[in-house]
């Protein structure tokens, strides 16, 4: 089957609020940026796939409004996942691998500002035994953090240093919402403090995928997707070992992440404690540059933050700053679902 690469990536500045922008207004600039970067016009794209959630907008079929931004008339080949855009990228990758298209536009967006994100995310939980208790996203992450502390795998100081490292890295990221020195703050849900939690904000991202020689013609150094896989764990938190992420481990194995070392990893870890779990599951030691973008602790536009990890990893390959990068996206409480991709430049950068 044909090789597929990420050939362009763009993201918005991530902001606490964007009241003046509708979703399509927020999205259009990044769509235009990736099309301009490749010289493609919207009607040249073989397949379009997006990721977003109606629950953020509080409106049914909200993604159909965003389609205005891609020029969906006359009709295009289009699909949508009610998930992070990383899973939309996976669907597009399958479409290109099977030869049904040569190019794909993948985009994702999320405006968390209209609602209360912690409450909104409770609606993705098991509606029989868990949802009626309204355990918010920080509470569930805090249970995982305490399990790590009890197991001796982290303490509050170690978690704070993860926050500091990510947000220091984000100083070089002009799109980041939180960068530089950020106070640890008070407990939100103990043991997690405000500093351990991602910023709540609005943002969008887009990538262009292309197959084989088309990729080479559109980009001087395409980021080839050498492997990509996603796995899910049981939905009940009480049957899972929260200090482990077997789904991330298996996805990485199937994506070929362990065949050779990676030099860069972009991890979708909105909470500091999740980076501890992921580093262990993915076997990342200090030789790997983790989250040079600042990761989700610097900007976490829900539904786009995972796609941004793939985009950031690809952009480093485009720029010659990485030869082999791992990109990870997550969804659901406590790293329930995990997607891992391995990206490579065609020739080793000297």
């Amino acid at each position, binding site marked *: 089957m044909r090789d597929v690469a990420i050939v362009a990536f763009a993201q918005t500045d991530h902001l606490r609020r964007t009241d*003046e922008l509708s979703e399509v207004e927020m999205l259009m600039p990044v769509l235009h940026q990736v099309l301009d970067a490749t010289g493609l016009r919207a009607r040249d794209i073989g397949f379009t796939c997006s990721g977003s959630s109606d*629950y953020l907008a509080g409106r049914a079929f909200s993604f159909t409004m965003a389609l205005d931004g891609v020029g969906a008339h006359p009709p295009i080949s289009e699909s949508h996942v009610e998930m992070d855009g990383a899973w939309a990228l996976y669907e597009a990758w399958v479409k290109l691998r099977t030869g049904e298209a040569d190019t794909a536009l993948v985009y994702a967006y999320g405006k968390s500002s209209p609602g209360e994100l912690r409450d909104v995310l409770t609606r993705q939980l098991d509606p029989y035994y*868990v949802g009626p*208790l309204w355990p918010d996203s920080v509470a569930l992450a*805090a249970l995982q953090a305490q399990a790590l502390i009890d197991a001796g795998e982290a303490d509050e100081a170690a978690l704070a240093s993860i926050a500091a490292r990510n947000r220091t890295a984000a100083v070089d990221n002009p799109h980041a919402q939180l960068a530089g020195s950020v106070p640890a703050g008070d407990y939100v*849900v103990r043991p997690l403090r405000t500093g351990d939690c991602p910023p709540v904000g609005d943002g969008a991202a887009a990538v262009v995928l292309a197959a084989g020689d088309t990729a080479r013609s559109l980009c001087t150094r395409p980021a080839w997707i050498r492997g990509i896989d996603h796995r899910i764990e049981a939905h009940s938190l*009480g049957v899972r070992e929260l200090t482990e992420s077997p789904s991330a481990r298996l996805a990485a194995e199937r994506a070929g992440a362990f065949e050779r070392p990676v030099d860069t990893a972009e991890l979708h870890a909105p909470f500091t404690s999740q980076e501890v779990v992921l580093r262990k599951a993915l076997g990342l030691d200090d030789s790997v540059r983790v989250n040079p973008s600042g990761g989700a602790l610097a900007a976490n536009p829900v539904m786009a933050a995972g796609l941004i990890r793939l985009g950031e990893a690809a952009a480093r390959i485009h720029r010659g700053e990485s030869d082999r990068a791992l990109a990870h996206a997550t969804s659901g409480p406590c790293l329930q679902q995990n997607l891992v991709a391995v990206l490579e430049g065609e020739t080793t950068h000297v």
Partner: protein
Amino acid sequence: MPDVLSAPLVVEFPFTRSLGPVQSAFLTGLRERTVLGVRTGDGKVLVPPVEYDPVTAEELHELTEVATTGTVTTWAWNPAPRRDQPLATPFAWVLVELDGADTALLHVLDAPGPEAVHTGMRVRIRWAPQRTGAITDIACFEPYEGEATGESTPHSGEFADPVTGIVTPARLDYTYSPGRAQSAYLNALSEQRTVGERCPSCRKVYVPPRGACPTCGVATAEQVEVGPRGTVTTYCIVNIKAKNLDIEVPYVYAHIALDGADLALHGRIGGIPYDQVRMGLRVEPVWTEGGRHPDHYRPTGEPDADYDAYKELL
């Protein structure tokens, strides 16, 4: 007048769900102060019980009763309870492995403060005084001094008057902002004007404007006033009265191409018997006192528009 509008938006729905045999037994059991788990093929007891083994996907039905006491396996202190959470005072979220179970149940623990909570602490269920067959029949857990028993006993899962469904209300509160283009449209309507936006590429005028041309995929910004008169391009006759709607049926709901617009919008047609509305009918908006949009459209009395004049707008 603010440039960008915003308004409260409440999304609320009582989700009504039916229960399978295992969930029905578990939730009915809670109503009767009995906690049931389900035994897997390899002898593990899952509490709360599920219908399919999360490891093997094998269908599960062997119910077993576990204790109402247990051990905290992990916890998190919530200093600021949120709306709809089980306790209004600060509490701990806990995963509790009930005595006799091999997995943990998520719930909350009533404790005076975080220093009173630790992993491994012993807890017991505090039942809600009024129980209906829901996870909230467990009001919370509370500290309990007593050794683990570790036993579970087979249970038929049969109760009088079993619960077969639950209703879970879900309310989310938003502050909705329609963005620049739609705010401009709504602001103009408050002055009884209708504005669209012209695509810089194909020159079409979209109304209501959404800030993008769906054909060209580019931003629109040039504001264009359209109407007030327009042409009925197509219509339907509504015969069934919607709940809370203060309009007599039958009435006509139409697509109306306002003069100068390249897209038809929706509106009700009044001031003419419903069976005399026709394609090509020329109409104008009728505003009510203080209304933020036309109440309906009525005939202008002009001759009908030629089909060729609106055929592209159907």
